[in-house]
């Protein structure tokens, strides 16, 4: 039996390379990607039934990947994603990739946040970020826009989660707290707090994004395309409708 020298077909080589890249780009095709979030219901829930949970899962499904969502505090979520402990983090304002160089933003907004002041004192009127200075303010650790904007207040208390934030307000240890309007309303309702109101107008409105660790950068574009496709084909709207307590 004779053995002959064969040269590999270039096309076959390219195919094998592509498969290798996909396999190395993440565990999308094997192990589910681990994404963390600090959001609360109705955006996210431990059961994975929140709006963002469902959108993200669908988007990943569309690109052929599986995803697992865990809950972490805001700052811990960023750090974990940045250090590669987790594969990604959501939802965040744009520009965090400057502070966390290992994060890659998926360039398609998942939703928007209205950063609103909640207080028990109906007499308080807030006009912009400067209007917070005379008050004892509470925020969630890791909300970068708030940490940057809110400075020079009488006091600033940072807590790890939304529940603690609103407990802080409810017990009078803060004059007001700044949080997302949608999630704030949901928390107040969930905790059965009364006398807390959301001041209008909101302090800022920001599009919110999904961030992936740099090693999954190859998925960002495809995910963005999948999200746009979901917007276009009405999938997002259908998901929003399916989540209780969430307006379209």
């Amino acid at each position, binding site marked *: 039996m004779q053995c002959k020298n064969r040269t590999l077909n270039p096309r076959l080589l390219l195919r094998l390379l592509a498969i290798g890249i996909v396999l190395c780009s993440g565990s999308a095709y094997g192990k589910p990607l681990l994404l963390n979030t600090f959001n609360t219901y109705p955006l996210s829930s431990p059961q994975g039934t929140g709006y963002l949970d469902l959108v993200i899962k669908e988007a990943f499904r569309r690109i052929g990947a599986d995803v697992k969502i865990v809950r972490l505090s805001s700052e811990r979520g960023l750090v974990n994603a940045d250090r590669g*402990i987790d594969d990604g983090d959501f939802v965040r304002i744009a520009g965090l990739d400057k502070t966390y160089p290992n994060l890659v933003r998926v360039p398609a907004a998942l939703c928007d946040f209205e950063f609103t002041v909640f207080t028990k004192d109906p007499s308080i009127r807030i006009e912009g970020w400067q209007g917070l200075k005379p008050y004892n303010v509470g925020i969630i650790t890791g909300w970068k826009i708030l940490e940057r904007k809110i400075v020079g207040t009488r006091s600033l208390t940072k807590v790890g989660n939304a529940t603690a934030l609103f407990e802080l307000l409810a017990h009078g240890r803060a004059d007001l707290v700044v949080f997302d309007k949608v999630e704030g309303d949901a928390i107040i309702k969930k905790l059965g707090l009364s006398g807390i109101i959301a001041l209008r107008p909101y302090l800022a409105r920001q599009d919110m994004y999904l961030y992936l660790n740099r090693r999954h950068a190859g998925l960002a574009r495809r995910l963005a395309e999948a999200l746009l496709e979901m917007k276009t084909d009405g999938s997002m709207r259908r998901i929003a409708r399916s989540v209780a307590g969430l307006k379209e």
Partner: protein
Amino acid sequence: MADEQRQIQNRIGRRLLKKVLLFSFVVTIIFTVIQAWMDYSIRMSGINETIGQVKKVQVRGLITALWNYDMQELAAEVEGIHHFNYLNYAAVIDRGKLIAQAGQKKRKNVITREIALTRDYNGRQVMLGTLYLQADTALVVRDVLARIALIFLFQAATVAIVAFFLLWLFGRMVTRHLSIAASYFRSFNVAGMNAPLVLDKPAKDDELDTLAGAFNMMREHLAASYLQQLCAQQEIEESERRFRVLFEQAPDAITVYDQDENRFVDANENAERLFALSREELLKTGPRQIYPDAQPDGRLISESISENIKLTLAGESVALDRLIRCADGKERLCEVRLVRLPSGERRLIRASYIDVTERRQAEKALFYAEKKFRDLLETIQLIAVMLDCDGNVVFCNDYFLGLTGWSRDEALGNNWFDMFLPGENRETVKSVFKSILRDNAPLHYENPIVTREGAKRLVIWDNSVLRNFGGDVIGTASLGIDVTEHRRLEEQLRQAQKMEAIGQLAGGVAHDFNNILCAIVGYAHLALMKMPEGDPVRGNMEQILRASERATTLTRSLLSFSRKQIINPRPNNLTDIIRGLEKFLSRLIREDIEMKIKCGEGDMMIFADRGQIEQMLMNLVTNARDAMPGGGHIAIGTVKVRMDEEFIRMHGYGKPGAYAAIVVSDTGEGMDAKTKERIFEPFFTTREQGKGTGLGLSMVYGIVKQHEGFIDVDSEQGKGAEFRIYLPLVSAAVPDRQRDIRLPEAEGGVETLLVAEDDEAIRQLNTELLRNYGYRIIEAVDGEDAVAKFRQNMDDVQLIIMDGIMPKKNGKEAYEEIRAINPSVRVIYLSGYAEDIISREGLLEPGTNFILKPVTPANLLKKVREVLDGD
């Protein structure tokens, strides 16, 4: 006052207080230090426990705060940790970035610990940061020092209080009583020895009472001992006086030398006298000053003195002879004995000196005298032996040992009779020994002794008894002469003298008989010449002549024995002689006798008369044949032998030189010693009467002696006999001293001849014979007459025929006078004596004409004619 002050300073209480305080202080310090060290260790381990506690309690909260990035909580937690004991600094660091801290970080005297802050997340440990803790050990030290200082202060105060209390108590209970006792001791003396020490104390039977009791007991013993010592001191003083007297009056001179002071520290009167120094002077000196450097033992005193002092101090008693130098410059020889004196730590040596100058001189003289005699005895060529009364050898000299072959060790102590006497003489000599011891006689005795090899030596002894100083006999002293050789030589001489005497006798008889025979033969010949043929008496005359020839042969044999036979020696090869005679000898023996001849290799040249040698061999073979009537073997052999001193010593005869030995042995009857002694004597025979002349071996003896040889015979009864003849070997070039003279035919003459002969018969025979042949004869009856007759007829006499031995003047003397008258006149000597006698008389000078009697007329005529016709 100063003493008082010192006493106060030295009081026991003060010293006790000082020492208690010092000791307590040191103990306190030690325990405090130990306590400090333990405290420090506990606190240091407390730091570890604190850190463990932080780990156990605080880390969880830290991890939670850190996980949630709750910085306020984190800061609160860190602040809380910082407040733990000795933790001066706490911080949380994540990836090198300080997240939260509390306290002041230090660089020195700190213990640091880092605790990893991890959280289990999604199935794996996530590193959240590190808790960095710093504990300040300086704080630990500070706390420990503060605590220890306090403890030390309290303990020191306690010790001081207790010490002062003890001091007060000690003063009350002890020192007060000690002061009382001290006062008592100060005033204690021999006079107050009976007053006891009493202490006034409320408590009894304590140590002070025991001390006081013990002291009182000691006081009593001391009092008793004092009394005893007083007595002992008196005794010592008495003893000292006695020994001093003994020391001073000792017959020896005595000095006592102190090694440490290096001088004499004592000396007695005899020492003063001996050294001629006063005691004061003597005690300023030492041994090195009293001894001159050169000493009798050959060693310098400077070398030996230290050694002797060392030996003596080591306990040895040293005795030696020493020359001492007296102050007057004289040197005396002393016997010195050195002994170490027991004197505690002092190193004292007692030396006693006995002046032995005169004694040593006497001993020396005695020694040399004894040595002289001993050397004499040792070197004298006589046997010197001393025996004790039991006959054991107590002395023997070298000559004796050399003679017997025993060593001195073997000889001394052994019994003389058992070791040195032959068994057969032992008892006899023992009785002689007893007689000497008892009666001091016999003083001279002769007996044989036995050497180590068993040989016997004959010794003549000169004995004397030995006595001790008390006059008791303690043994014998004997000088002996070994006369073995002497006796043997005596025997040989005796034998030689005997043979010489016999020879002389035989020679004399033969001479006279020869003269008679000359006359008989001469007249018988004359008668026969004048008898007509057919005369009936002619037969008788011929019988007379034949008998005369036999008689002539007999006389020749006698002359051969007595060496008076004229021989004609010349160089001859002995081997040729024997080989030439072999056939003739074989005819002499019978058929039942076998004869073997074995000659040595090479020529054996001897200066000998061949006929005489042949005669000798024939006689020996005939003798051997007759000794073997039943047949047997005869062996003849020759060998070259060199006689040396050893040979001569062993055989008792000989003269150094090379010899041809002829050995003739037979297996015949042999002979006993008595026969052997006489076999060479003429007419001695063991054969039956008429069967032998007894002259055969006598001839052999004479021939051998005439050839300057030696003969020996070895024989035992029944064991045959062996004759050994030694003839001197010569070189072949030895010139002939004599040649055979061929006798010419008988021829007469007309010359005038002077015939001098004291024997009238021979004179007349010769006169008549010569006249018959035409000669004119003048007769002379002796030597003087011959000289006188020659003076009268000096012009006519042309030849003198002269008897060699004559009365008044012998032939030579007469001829000397005649020759003085006429030197050209010639002479023929006639003699019946052998050549040696003729030589002795001076007749046989070279060129001398000589005829041995009896001479036949023809021979005489031929000789006369030959001389007259000679040049």
